[in-house]
């Protein structure tokens, strides 16, 4: 089955509401795309969850949320897109610890997350919805192909929930994307983001050090020992 065909089916199904959509995702969706393994690699790394076009969206979006600038690397350079990819392929992406039994109803904002979609499913539907929106509004271009100014505008609109996406609420999608971007920029490098301690060095967090007994009363003095992660000073060592 080609990708386009599958997406066409999705679009058709979307009208029936999120209950119908969700059954298209998860393990079944992975299997449906499994016939082109080579297409799941980016920069020599095999992706765990995203397709290549989805990954292009994520890399572009996170580079707008935390851009590279004179202060140092941004989220893209820090590996945040790979971080999100791995998170979505794992227990978080599957909502493994969440209560995911129906009935499913729209609640008040105070009642929190009530979508039937797992985080991994929300990303898939959300990215699809945004790229579809962009193609309609920007002369067949995907989000990744827009210029930075338009990308920022679109992200702001998503954040405020001003855009109606097919299959997923824009606000919820943006909130999760920003949360995971933040996580990937500041989590220990063993999870694939915060490469070379980019996030920690930006703010001055020295990493999970064990003992400050002799330093805590050195008021106002900068802490000068080098940054460490759970695997030591070599931040690039990833836990398997």
């Amino acid at each position, binding site marked *: 089955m080609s990708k386009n065909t599958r997406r066409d089916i999705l679009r058709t199904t979307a009208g029936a509401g999120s209950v119908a959509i969700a059954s298209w995702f998860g393990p079944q969706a992975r299997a449906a795309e499994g016939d082109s393994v080579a297409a799941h690699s980016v920069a020599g790394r095999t992706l765990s969850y995203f397709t290549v076009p989805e990954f292009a969206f994520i890399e572009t979006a996170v580079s*707008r*949320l*935390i*851009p590279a*600038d004179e*202060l140092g690397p*941004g989220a893209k350079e820090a590996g945040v897109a790979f971080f999100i990819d791995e998170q979505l392929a794992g*227990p*978080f992406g599957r*909502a*493994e*610890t*969440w*209560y*995911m*039994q129906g*009935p499913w*109803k729209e*609640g*008040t*904002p*105070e*009642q*929190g*997350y*009530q979508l039937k979609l797992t985080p991994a499913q929300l990303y898939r539907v959300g990215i699809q919805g945004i790229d579809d929106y962009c193609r309609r509004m920007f002369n067949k271009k995907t989000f990744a192909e827009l210029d930075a100014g338009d990308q*920022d505008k679109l*992200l702001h609109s998503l*954040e405020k929930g001003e855009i109606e996406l097919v299959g997923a609420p824009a606000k919820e999608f943006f909130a999760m994307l*920003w949360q995971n*971007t*933040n*996580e990937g920029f*500041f*989590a*220990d490098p*063993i*999870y694939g983001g915060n490469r070379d301690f980019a*996030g*920690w060095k*930006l*703010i*001055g*967090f*020295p990493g*999970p*050090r*064990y*003992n*400050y*007994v002799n*330093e*805590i*009363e050195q*008021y*106002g*003095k*900068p*802490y000068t020992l080098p940054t460490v992660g*759970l695997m030591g000073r070599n931040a690039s060592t990833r836990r398997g």
Partner: protein
Amino acid sequence: MATKLKSVDAVLVGFGWTASILAKELTDAGLQVLAIERGKFRDTVPDFATTHIQDELKYAVRHGLFEEPARETLTFRNSLDQEALPMRHLGSFNPASGVGGAGIHWNGQNWRFLPTDFKIRSHTEARYGKNFIPADMTIQDWGVTYDDLEPYYDKFEYLCGISGQAGNVQGKIQPGGNPFEGPRARAYPLPPLKRSYATVLFDKAAKDLGLKPFPCAAANTSQPYKNPYGVQMGQCTYCGFCEWFACGNYSKSSPQTTILPALLPKDNFSYRTLCDVTRVNLDSTGKRATGVTYVDVQGREFEQPADLVVLCAFAQHNVHLLLLSGIGKPYDPRTNQGVTGRNYAYQITSSVNVFLKENMNPFMGAGALGQAVDEFNGDNFDHGPLGFIGGGYIALWTTGGRPILQQHGAPKGTAKWGGGWKKSMHENYLKSVSVATHGSVMSYRGSYLDLDPTYRDVYGNPLLRLTFDFHDNEYKMSKFETDKAALIAKAMNPQSIKINYREGHYSILPYETTHNTGGAAMGADPKTSVVNRYLQSWDVSNVFVMGSSVFPQNPGYNPTGTVGALAYWAADAIKTKYLKNPGPLVQA
């Protein structure tokens, strides 16, 4: 069909702080005791080793040590006219799962309640008149007094090796301590923790305003400590990974670091993990428990007979079990009749972000390293002209600078993401701290727990349903506290501050505090309480209920100190009164 097991003298539901205390006390009295825990066994070695426990993503963000809503959650609504929906992932509070309970991932902020907190209704009526209490506010006296509990507070503090500065020893006010605290028999077992720079600035600012700041009492050990059970703890290293993490250094008081080494070797104690208790079984009269039913990890059902059943699960889970088992009449807010589920309460918090001019090194800290003022807590100030009941402490805590969840936000007007946000993080992370208010929440007719009509847990049992919102009294109080906090923050000579009032309805996310209380309220009157002053069920006298579920309303302090004191108090009553003559300890 449940397999019936051999009877024990006492079965404890859960194996956290209160179960560990009860188990130690009851096995000392010669009873055969069994604890049944839904989570896993875990201990300092190997589970909490510093080589992997300081992992913010795994533990704080992805909730590595907490309960999984897939297995146990509740439904929530703000008011009776709404339909409750499930809490699908954790948010506003983080109950634990596993041996040690929330005792392994708490901050260690250890407080005593004020003497007036225990008699809030009678005290308020006497000082301000009966009409001062709103009609729908269902606050009540506890049936136990501060003086009753003082020896048991002491016992818990010496168990834990609390670091702190006493404020009132046998009626004598001590310089540098909290002058508002109730009299204590003796000083804390350990001196206060070292101070972080930000707490020093808070201390000076509060003094400049004429307040009396003091170091918060901490269940983080300022020095090595050997407790009365002979269990050894090590000095805290200020690594900044306390709350939501377990301590790898034997420096945070928990069942594992204070009781289990003395309890686990005992022949008359045993425990089972990964077992969910689903019912307290009653005999045909409904007035006597015969034991509990539980399901193990393979899905097998067992009946565990016992002479005594003690509910030691997390606050709302005790209430859930009482409701599922038919113990106590369920509370009905429409008629204001019934008791089980009545008087659920919480905590109301707010903060003021302080952006300072100097480097604070926020990553150096400890879960209970803080400086506080107590002028505006309980009834330490005149409420007459203010028109609300309750209060809270104001504190500057330096618990750590973990970068994902401990960003103190950016100054007013900064972008929420993008280059502006990045620049602000770069400029402010090392220089920003937060002054917090920690306020009481009264109980109300419409704030309660019952069984959900729609949603079910993995065993097909109805989920617990939480109906709760903040009331005008709490908003007024919190505004008052936050304005005082802002005055202190301004006196710290910052570049800028950002005031975060508590506004809007109570929400099931984001995180606020794991100080859920009530639903099995204690009291002197069986019409308004589930348990008597000894935490014994009025209706089923061989069932006792521990934990903050027995708080009739929630004072302006963290609950654990009082939870520990009440557990020792109840254990003492069981040992010295109940076992000699099993039956009701207070006549209804």
